[in-house]
């Protein structure tokens, strides 16, 4: 019995990645931009697991595990940055964060 073609999974992954990229480009709220980045990482993970399943290799799943770790570290530091920026500028609108001086 044949299952679902792997191309469907890759297509879904591409669509989710595009939505994430659009979110980064369109939204002004720094938190939502971060969520869009998470969505893109998740789309990459989906492609990894789909290929790991097709080729019957576990290495793809190990990579997804590492990507999740990196995402967790990235969110911790990124949210700390957003909180620090909010303290000094009273806003998380990325249009208003346009100077390097704190």
């Amino acid at each position: 019995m044949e299952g679902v073609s792997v191309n469907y999974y890759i297509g879904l992954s591409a669509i989710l990645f595009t939505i994430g990229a659009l979110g980064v480009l369109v939204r002004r709220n720094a938190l939502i931009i971060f969520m869009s980045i998470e969505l893109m990482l998740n789309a990459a993970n989906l492609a990894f697991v789909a290929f790991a399943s097709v080729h019957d290799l576990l290495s793809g799943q190990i990579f997804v595990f590492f990507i999740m770790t990196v995402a967790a570290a990235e969110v911790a530091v990124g949210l700390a940055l957003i909180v620090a920026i909010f303290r000094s500028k009273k806003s998380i609108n990325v249009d208003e964060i346009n100077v390097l001086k704190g």
Partner: protein
Amino acid sequence: MTVELILFLILATVAVISALGMLLSRNAVYSALFLVLNFATVAVFYLLLGAPFIAITQVTVYAGAIMVLFLFVIMLLGADPLPEGKELPKQKWLASFLALVLAVEGIVLISMQKTAGFIPTPVEGAGNPKAIGELLFSGYLLPFEVTSVLLLVAMVGAIVLTGKKKKGGQS
């Protein structure tokens, strides 16, 4: 149409709609909850792909830890939608056009490929924690150790960035 294909289509619809909901919500809390739904759907995809360990990790790490952190920060900074300020002219249209180009490009490239294969029906014990652990602690031991250093650095960074300054600090 097999059962798997029907299941895939339903789940894919939910995933895409929840991603769009995340993108279009005015309220950041709604965005976060839509994203949780999206992560849960992707976890079900992992189960369909024969990766139960990754699916559970997805639920605990992404939908659990990361999104709770997001919700904490949203509540901390105030959940009010941002006021509509001056925007760059035509920025939304340009961004939408570029995203459309990216999507069309990706879909054309994928549809030009010969199919790379079909997802096999998951067998008992595929991708279970035992197999993952054995590979992780043999072939991928060095990346695993580097990961622990990375998490330590992230933890120290988060504490340093948000900690109060003792004196002489501006905030």
